[in-house]
């Protein structure tokens, strides 16, 4: 059974904090997103694939050259024709610095959890991320590229490496309050030189509100 979305209080909290942050000259935005997610697992015992839609949100606070992002998403994933569904939850926080316009380098935790037959599998990664974002032709349209890498700590099984990447675009008409985005992301955790691995990819559509 899926628990109530935790993203809603996160977004509400961000929206409440936005006016105070905005008074400090900060940029604040909140994003709601839907991701079509596919998780593929490869292990010596065999292969498995689950997919489904997850709902989530992100709050972003930028002050000068520092940006803090906190995100949360949750949904249920189906195992092929199996009627039972797995609960999937992910959350992250990352603190970026911007050494040059459009470029961000950040570090922060990334956690995802999947409950399979009442057994929780959790991946915890301290990830390093590089991101570049710039306008495409018009300031209203921006594209971005992201690369991430980290050291996972996978409870039960020990994954040795984890990396991923994503790209996407955001359209914010006339620099207004709302922005609409689409992105693609994929990451993979590996152990035993790839003999055991877990790949998660997702196509996301999002709506952002730029509160300042």
């Amino acid at each position, binding site marked *: 059974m899926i628990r109530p979305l935790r993203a809603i209080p996160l977004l509400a909290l961000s929206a409440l904090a936005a006016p105070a942050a905005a008074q400090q000259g900060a940029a604040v935005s909140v994003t709601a997103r839907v991701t079509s997610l596919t998780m593929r697992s490869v292990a010596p015992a065999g292969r498995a694939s689950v997919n489904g839609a997850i709902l989530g949100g992100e709050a972003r606070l930028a002050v000068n050259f520092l940006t803090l992002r906190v995100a949360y998403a949750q949904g249920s994933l189906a195992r092929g024709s199996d009627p039972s569904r797995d609960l999937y939850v992910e959350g992250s926080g990352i603190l970026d610095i911007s050494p040059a316009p459009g470029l961000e380098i950040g570090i922060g935790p990334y956690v995802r959890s999947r409950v399979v037959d009442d057994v929780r599998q959790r991946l915890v990664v301290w990830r390093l991320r590089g991101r570049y974002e710039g306008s*495409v*032709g018009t300031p209203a349209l921006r594209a971005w590229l992201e690369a991430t890498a980290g050291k996972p700590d996978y409870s039960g099984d020990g994954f040795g490496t984890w990396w991923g990447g994503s790209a*996407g*675009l955001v359209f914010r008409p006339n620099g207004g309050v709302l922005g609409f985005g689409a992105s693609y992301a994929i990451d993979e955790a590996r152990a035993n030189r790839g003999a055991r691995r877990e790949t998660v990819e997702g*196509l996301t559509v999002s709506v952002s509100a730029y509160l300042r």
Partner: protein
Amino acid sequence: MMPRLALLLTLTVLAAAGPPGLRAQSARELVASGLSAYRAVRYDGAVQQLRQALNVEGDDALPDSVRATAYAYLAAAEYYRGHADDAAAATRQALLTDPSYRPDTLVFPPDVTDAFESVRRLTRYVRIQAPADTIVQPGGRGYPVRLYVSAAHELTAALIPEGGTPRVFYDGAVRDSADIVWPALERGARSPTGRFVLEIRSRLPGGGARVVRLPLEARPIRADTLPEPVPPADSLFLPERAARRSTVPSASLALLAGAATMLLPTLVAKDGVGSRTRYALGASLGVAGIVAFFTGSRPDPLPANAAVNRALMDAWRRDADGVRAENERRRGRTALRIVAGPTASTDSSR
């Protein structure tokens, strides 16, 4: 009463010290002579001298402070001459001149003061004492008026605008004197300007009224308003967009992002498998890059500069709004200059 007595004694001494017969006697000298005659029990002479003094007009006329006393001595002299009606008429004249006048019981014998009192009780004279030229501030006390009455009675005080309807602001009894205030600048009320008449209407015992009028002129005094702040000069504003740049970087970014979207599974996943739907997103990015390359890039906005400019304009608007509000407040706080004219009365039978 003592200052009046002192004044009369002074007049007497001055009159006696002057060279008589060299010139016509002044009103004050006539009063002094009349008083001397009264004390010498020469009542006919006293009446003659005092009436002469009281009939003097123009610059040499007696001031009200002396005039009331002269009438009181005239009333006493007439009383002793057996002319009761003339004595009563002189008493009324004394009270008309100064409603607060009372005969000094150390100077006049009881039968004279009793006669004075019996006449006074029936009179309804009012004297208005008000500032001749004053400024009433908004929120202040208003225009103060002091009323002196000859005897306790009911009266109303009303302000009558020129061609307008009277507005009563006092209605009640006054015993000896009363301080009343015309609330000239009431909160929320329109500032009164123009000519007015302050009318004191005394109710007479047998019906009718005795009316005393004081003409007033009210002129608004407007406070100076502040000049509005000028908008910030153009030179103070920062550019809100960066200089136009080459289209290559933005086109390259879109193409790179599109390519990355398509190639990420190959780069990240060992099996290189990925969702086919990503090709649509990748293609969209690629098309955006190509369009950007051929249509040219608009300069990027500089949000920090825009924020500085916005703050500059906001500060100016705040200042301008503050000045406008202050000016509005000042316009609403118009003071009033009130100039009073000479009092006129409509005397009734009493």
